[in-house]
């Protein structure tokens, strides 16, 4: 079976999205390192570029690069799944430029203006000040319009071309993903109400719709990389959707333990969020099963390595690390500590970064018509160093989180004083130092990844000749 595909405009657009995604991934790491260093040396850029700014750009760049790579992956898959060029691709391309311009302006304002006066104008123009959803309101509206164009592209194309299980799930998921963003676009003085709807976006994205998106990418990836049987892959996909939404939607309850919401969320949140790792185990088994069935024969080494890291990383980061503090009896001591940061790092990396990087390798291979793309030494160093770096940060932050849970929360009753005593405890600061060191390891891995993404096609072609 030849791997060469016609030059679809949709796939050219996908490459543009991937390119910006990698740039933003780099920005995420640089901002993370600044924030990590400020933990060690709080005077660094104090009153010039404060922790709050570095951290805001760190997490926003994370969310946006992942959305870019997800949109890119969808534009990539679409013509191959439907057999036709994406409908309305010119509008889609225009949307890309509008979105990229908007993101550039937002980041520029974050970095140069940083904060505004306590008025609605600040929320519209500078920064909404709600973690992860900091984008000012004008940008929210812009993002929504561009995403609607994207959703139109997907729906119109699937309706006109061939419809598969993969595209059916993709369509349903995109509608939910785009619609949920609207829940974060209003102001209220009631902080409990604010946080209640805030979680509708954050949780139902990262613990439901994004996970289903990952299921779609794994399904597509396994078919392309190891020629897995579509019927079996799509059956797994439907099972995953059943389990992910079955546990993830009501699993939202674990965010409603302590924000002013009623006690019944304790039971609902505990039960359903404890079930959330089950589909992740399923996804892990699925990938390993398919790998065994095809004797590990793959046509894209680096993509497959990233898929494997995804299977384990999703299970460990989102599943195990999430489960560790999901029960209210434990969460009352860990909520709002570095424990959450540890979980966040491994979950975002394991569940999302890995599969999206894998998709970039799939796109590079197919764009260049490479029959078999093997890992280079750089590919292997990149995946190893980034994985070691993120795992290292996760373990370090988890240990610091334990110190917070025991010292700040249990021993000192969560006071201002207790907070700073825990922050100064040796085991806490050791964790924070190791996080910085492991962040540097991650950055080195990232630089190798960029080098590999830029050069692997040329090398593979040279090898083939």
């Amino acid at each position, binding site marked *: 079976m030849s791997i060469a595909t016609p030059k679809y405009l949709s796939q050219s657009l996908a490459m543009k999205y991937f390119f910006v995604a990698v740039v933003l991934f780099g920005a995420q790491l640089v901002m993370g390192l600044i924030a990590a260093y400020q933990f060690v040396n709080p005077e660094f850029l104090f009153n010039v570029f404060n922790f709050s700014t570095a951290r805001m750009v760190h997490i926003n760049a994370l969310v946006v690069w992942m959305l870019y790579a997800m949109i890119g992956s969808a534009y990539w898959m679409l013509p191959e799944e439907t057999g036709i060029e994406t409908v309305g691709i010119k509008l889609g391309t225009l949307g890309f430029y509008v979105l990229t311009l908007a993101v550039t302006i937002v980041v520029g304002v974050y970095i140069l203006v940083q904060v505004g006066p306590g008025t609605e104008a600040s929320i519209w123009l500078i920064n909404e000040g709600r973690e992860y959803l900091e984008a000012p309101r004008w940008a929210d509206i812009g993002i929504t319009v561009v995403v609607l164009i994207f959703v139109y592209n997907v729906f119109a194309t699937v309706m006109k071309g061939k419809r598969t299980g993969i595209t059916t799930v993709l369509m349903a998921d995109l509608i939910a993903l785009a619609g949920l963003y609207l829940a974060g676009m209003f102001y209220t003085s009631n902080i409990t109400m604010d946080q209640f709807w805030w979680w509708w976006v954050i949780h139902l994205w990262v613990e439901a719709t994004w996970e289903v998106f990952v299921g779609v990418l794994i399904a597509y990836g396994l078919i392309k990389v190891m020629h897995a049987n579509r019927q079996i892959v799509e059956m797994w996909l*439907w099972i995953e959707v059943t389990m992910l939404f079955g546990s993830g939607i009501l699993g939202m309850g674990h965010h409603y333990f302590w924000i002013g919401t009623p006690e019944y969320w304790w039971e609902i949140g505990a039960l359903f969020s404890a079930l959330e790792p089950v589909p992740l185990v399923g996804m892990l088994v699925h990938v390993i099963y398919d790998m065994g069935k095809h004797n590990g024969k793959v046509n894209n080494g680096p993509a497959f390595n990233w898929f494997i890291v995804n299977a384990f990383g999703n299970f460990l980061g989102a599943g195990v690390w999430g489960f560790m503090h999901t029960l209210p009896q434990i969460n*009352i001591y860990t909520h709002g500590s570095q424990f959450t940061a540890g979980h966040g790092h491994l979950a975002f990396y394991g569940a999302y970064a890995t599969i999206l990087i894998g998709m970039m390798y799939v796109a590079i291979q197919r764009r260049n018509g490479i029959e078999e793309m093997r890992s280079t030494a750089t590919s292997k160093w990149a995946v190893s160093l980034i994985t070691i770096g993120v795992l290292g940060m996760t373990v370090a932050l988890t240990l610091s989180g334990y110190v917070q849970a025991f010292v700040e929360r249990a021993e000192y009753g969560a006071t201002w004083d207790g*907070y700073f005593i825990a922050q100064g405890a040796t085991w806490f600061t050791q964790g924070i130092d190791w996080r910085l060191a492991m962040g540097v390891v991650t950055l080195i891995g990232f630089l190798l990844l960029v080098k590999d993404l830029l050069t692997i096609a040329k090398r593979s072609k040279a090898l083939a000749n």
Partner: protein
Amino acid sequence: MSEDYKEPESVWTSNRFWSRSAGWVTGFSAVLLILLTMDTLGQITMGSAEDLANKVTKRVPSASVINYKVTYEYSAARGHEVPVIGEKELFFGRNDYSEAEANALLEKGKLTSQAKNCMNCHTLLGNGAYYAPDLTKAWLDPAWQAGGVMQGMTGTTSTDEAMLVFFQNPDKYASHARRMPNLGITPEEAKGLVAFLKQMSSIDTNGFPRNFNKIQGSTQK
């Protein structure tokens, strides 16, 4: 379903069965979430000044709670601490803020908390970043009470005044090496922030944080 789809013999390997299951399970979960949301929204809607005057307990009390003393006490019935709204208390020299005045203060404070990006250093209700202390019960924290470090440093004699002075020049009143930066907070914004923190401390958070300032050995005890 693709055209070359073959219906397998067992239902457990049938794509049709699983796609329908996905639809039903998702639909059922979504409906349940919406029903629970409707109930929760009723319970977390902000109370009124009348509720406070009539001692009606609300999970999220009205902004007028700034006119009252707030404490955080153990409830044997619920097995954890709950906020208790007591007698009238002066807030910047007054305890007769109308509901509209209190709402305006709260709105100014909440907007300021967003515009100044508080959540990317602090946690509010436990959500946010972990670079600075949680603010859920900051109003009740011993560091801000009489004898606490913050009143001492700012040369004030009440929690509200200490916070007012601190917010305007936080980098000058550092309790630890990790200081709060100067965010250009005006006196009006600072007053709003104090109201926001006081109102947040009165929210029923199901006992979070647990044992707040109750453990022996705390340096403030």
